[in-house]
């Protein structure tokens, strides 16, 4: 009895697995995580574009583990996919996975986070510098072109460094605005502490730029608990749902620079299928972020 049940179970399992399909050609994508709205949106845009172009696409999720990402890429190599799209777990650590793929003659496209120390066929990612400039211009407009502002940053991540540089560049063209404090606040609780310190040390601050949604939302909470909501304006970067809602409902959150993971996913798959067809592609494909304010979205 038990034995026949086994056989049935096994056959059912095998059939279920077969239904998901396996192929040898097409695109293999290794994504950082599937537990963040940004990456969910990226993955679904990739799937939709692959369907539209009729290219087979497989997505593996590294779950923020570089070792899993390397194993996923190795499995793509063994399968013999034509192109690999990677959103790196870590910009320097991803080098070994990329080199391995390239040694096997497979072209690599990075999306979102660029790889360091190794050349790839193309990189599709947010133009963080331009986003930072837009944040700076928005800040200037919101605070009436004068006053002291502060920044919450994450100095070990290149994309954030670019954002902050763009922000500083934009502020530099407004002589009556001064950046009085730049503090590190990586996670939401750390950003909250950083924002409280900023407000404590500089009670005359009129604006805070948070490097990401979390940093900005934390800064907005700090502003409210310091009862400075009539004085301080906060601007964020990323544009996920929570921050967009805050821009709508929270008077302190005056705007957020929005990244477009859906565009990123679409362009990445478009690029991959061009590479398969043997067409040449741009080495850098910046996606320009938009500006979300209470007045609406400006792409």
């Amino acid at each position: 009895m038990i034995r026949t049940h086994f056989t049935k179970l096994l056959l059912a399992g095998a059939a279920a697995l077969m239904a998901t399909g396996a192929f040898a050609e097409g695109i293999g994508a290794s994504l950082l995580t599937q537990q963040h709205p940004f990456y969910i949106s990226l993955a679904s845009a990739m799937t939709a574009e692959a369907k539209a172009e009729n290219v087979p696409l497989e997505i593996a999720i590294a779950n923020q583990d570089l070792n899993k990402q390397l194993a996923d890429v190795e499995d793509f190599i063994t399968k013999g996919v034509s192109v690999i799209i990677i959103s790196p777990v870590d910009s320097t650590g991803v080098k070994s996975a990329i080199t391995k793929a390239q040694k096997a003659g497979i072209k690599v496209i990075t999306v979102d986070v660029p790889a360091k120390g190794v050349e790839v066929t193309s990189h599709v990612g947010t133009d963080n510098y331009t986003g930072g400039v837009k944040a700076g211009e928005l800040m200037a407009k919101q605070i009436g072109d004068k006053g002291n502002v502060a920044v919450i940053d994450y100095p070990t991540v290149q994309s954030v460094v670019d954002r902050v540089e763009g922000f500083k560049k934009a502020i530099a063209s407004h002589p009556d605005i001064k950046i009085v404090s730049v503090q590190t606040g990586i996670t939401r609780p750390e950003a909250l502490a950083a924002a409280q310190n900023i407000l404590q040390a500089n009670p005359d601050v009129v604006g805070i730029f948070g490097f990401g949604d979390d940093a900005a939302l934390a800064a907005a909470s700090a502003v409210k608990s310091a009862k400075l909501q009539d004085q301080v304006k906060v601007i964020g970067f990323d544009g996920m749902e929570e921050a967009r809602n805050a821009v709508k409902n929270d008077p302190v959150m005056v705007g957020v620079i929005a990244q477009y993971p859906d565009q990123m996913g679409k362009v990445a798959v478009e690029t991959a299928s061009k590479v398969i067809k043997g067409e040449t592609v741009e080495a850098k494909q910046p996606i320009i972020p938009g500006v979300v304010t209470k007045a609406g979205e400006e792409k």
Partner: protein
Amino acid sequence: MTNSTETKQALLASPLIRQYGGIVISLIILCLVFSSISPRFLAFNNFMNIMQQVAVIAVAAYGMTYVILLGDIDLSVGSIIAVAGMVAAQAFSMGFGFAPTVLITLAAGAIMGGLNGVLSAKLMLPSFIVTVATMGIYRGAVSLPTNGAPASIENETWLAIGSESWLGLPIIIWIVIALFAINHVVLSRTIFGRRAYLAGGNREAAIYSGIRVDRLKIIIFMISGIMAAISGILLSSRLSSAQTNAGMGYELDAIAAVVLGGTSLAGGVGTMVGTILGALIIGVINNGMNMLAVPYFYQLIFKGIVILFAVWLDVRSKSMRA
């Protein structure tokens, strides 16, 4: 029915099947299922692939085998793996060469494992609690030198471990095989190994027969720490970087490999052969599901089910023999 009885008899005839019945059958079933769907699964290249991917788990599982054999558990190995990589990265950045860095890394593993053993043996604390605590302590310590950022490793000899081959086999696989041989001999052919079985099977009896169980426990946790440090070496050489979140959750894969291999969580029963077979099952599941393009969340579910199934099959085949 006659047919299956004959197969059963044929299977039971082989000594490997007799001892590792359930696990070997599971391994064969998995390979058959995967290769019937994906022709590339059975390729020699893919086998090398699986071995390299499972190396980090297998080596940590060697150390875990002693610990579980003693009736204890070591939940800190994932964190030790990360610390080992970071210690190596820091040693290289201070200008140490390859050999001294290996020694420093192994010493770090021995110290962290030894601390687990001392806390558990001398303070009479359950190893589960001790290693839950040190898991957090070691994980926190990883981030101290770089403030959470990864550190890259550029020493060429170190990186060769993860990327070069010798006599047609990747070096990392040679290391897995060599460590298997050493640990297998230690466990099955030495007095130390006999003592571990005895102390794990019946602690009181072991004490009365003159075994210094406390000292044995400390040494065994040190071995687990050293094996985890070697895992950390393999991992950081494969990735050419020390990640602060490296090895997170790997202790559970290592425990699963050991238990899949027939080692009893109650202590006293188990072998290294079983452990490497258990590690291979985990490697085959992970790789096979990737080959079949099973979506990630389903992979987690399927892996859990396969582990349950394999352990059940093993328990069942053992009770059938008894």
